[in-house]
């Protein structure tokens, strides 16, 4: 247990990686969005996609945790289990903190009617329409998903090299295309559309959380036999 906590502390030794960069990216994206909102002379709600910027950094963070931090942890004779739990645990805390920031940003945004320029950065139509916990669940799950997907593909790369990565990414694409083709063939698109129309941000978060759990379990199984 103490070694798991030590893994988390180790990754906070350089504060930039897990705290500094996400905040910098969020702030830069926010300020740029505001500047653009201010330049558009329209006095009604303007929505931008800038709040997704940190999510892409989390994808990279997931990849680097595996390709660079994992080999280092092996050099310090840290077990794969401690590395996995410490890293994922730390990221969950970071994702929680970021979610808090997004919620707070959303509150201020609505109170100031879009920062005085009718610009909405943290509010996203449909996603943030529900109650606060639905919004929170959505942001948290998306952040976890980005990190875990990066982490898992990097683990696959570590274990099976370029071939493994190609096979798994192509395999995933082919499976998705296959599903789409099957849906077309069976004329199920109507049902699929109806299903999606019924979903709320909260239920989508639930499904995505389930996917995250599956991916996290897959990552761990793959990591168990990975070499630095």
């Amino acid at each position: 247990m103490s070694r798991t906590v030590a893994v988390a502390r180790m990754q906070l030794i350089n504060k930039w990686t897990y705290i500094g960069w996400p905040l910098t990216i969020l702030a830069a994206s926010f300020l740029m969005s505001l500047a653009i909102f201010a330049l558009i002379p329209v006095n009604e709600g303007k929505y931008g996609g800038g709040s997704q910027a940190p999510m892409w950094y989390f994808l990279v963070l997931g990849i680097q945790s595996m390709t660079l931090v994992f080999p280092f942890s092996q050099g310090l004779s840290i077990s794969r289990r401690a590395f996995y739990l410490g890293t994922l645990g730390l990221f969950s805390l970071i994702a929680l903190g970021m979610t808090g920031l997004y919620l707070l940003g959303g509150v201020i945004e609505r109170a100031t009617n879009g920062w005085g320029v009718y610009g909405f950065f943290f509010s996203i139509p449909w996603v943030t329409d529900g109650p606060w916990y639905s919004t929170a669940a959505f942001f948290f799950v998306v952040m976890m998903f980005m990190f875990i997907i990066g982490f898992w593909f990097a683990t696959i790369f570590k274990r099976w090299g370029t071939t493994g990565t190609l096979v798994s990414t192509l395999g995933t694409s082919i499976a998705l295309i296959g599903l789409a083709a099957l849906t077309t063939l069976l004329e199920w698109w109507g049902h699929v559309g109806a299903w999606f129309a019924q979903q709320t941000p909260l239920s989508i978060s639930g499904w995505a959380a389930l996917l995250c759990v599956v991916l996290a379990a897959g990552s761990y199984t793959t990591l168990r036999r990975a070499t630095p």
Partner: protein
Amino acid sequence: MNDTIVEARNLFKHYKELNALDNVNLSLTANRIYGLLGRNGAGKTTLMSILTAQAFASSGEALVFGASAYENDSVLSRICFIRESQKYPDDFQPQHAFRSAALFYKNWDQEFADRLAEDFQLPVKRRIKKLSRGQLSAVGVIIGLASRAELTFFDEPYLGLDAVARQLFYDRLVEDYAEYPRTIILSSHLIDEVANLLEHVVVIDRGRIIMDADAEDIRGSAVTVSGSADKVDAFLAGRKILHRETLGSLASVTVDEALDSRERTEAQELGLELSPVSLQQLVVRKTMAGAAATGTGTGDFADDTMEARR
């Protein structure tokens, strides 16, 4: 005191078309300095990786402190193995790497690490990915020394280090080892440089252990006899010859046997000259003799690709 802390039993590691480890059996005891010697790609790093559970054997057993190191915190916490091509987190500076090591090694000595960093003139506040090869090696050397782990591996620790820095490393290693005895496994192909440090020598070639003996016993275990070719050959008839060199009518022959005092006197009377064989020469001769015996040549290319792959 003399308990076994590393034990390998019938270890094999197969890659596609070569055996990186080929039935390795090994037993190392506590508080000694071991040399793990061999050519590039001989299997040194593979063996160390498997012992520390960084990599997996195809078959066989690797026990450290009596158990497998795999996912075993009570074993892992006593091991340090910074590999020659060690990777570090992207944003890390040497000082971050040292603070990380301090989190995991209960005997970590920060003062010692600081002193070493000064000795090696290591810029501790520069990003690791901007360091030169020698400075990168210094980071690994400092973690290995200052962690004072009961079982410490050094994997070709001198790469890119200049002669002064290498000497510093050897000196600090011996000093600190005298004060804090532990088991050290030093993998190297610069044999002459480390020969004096080693208490026990393990030589690995193409995945096989070809020598496993105390340094004490190795000194004098082989001898080179030189003089006129026919006299040398007559004197050494029936002995285990490692190497033979001739120049005109003169021959210089290395035998893998010690000579007793009667034989030495006899050699002197015949006018033959006896000279000791250095550890490096012995390892080179034995490796080449082994290659010739199996008829596979020295396998330069296979070895190099092996190293690059890793």
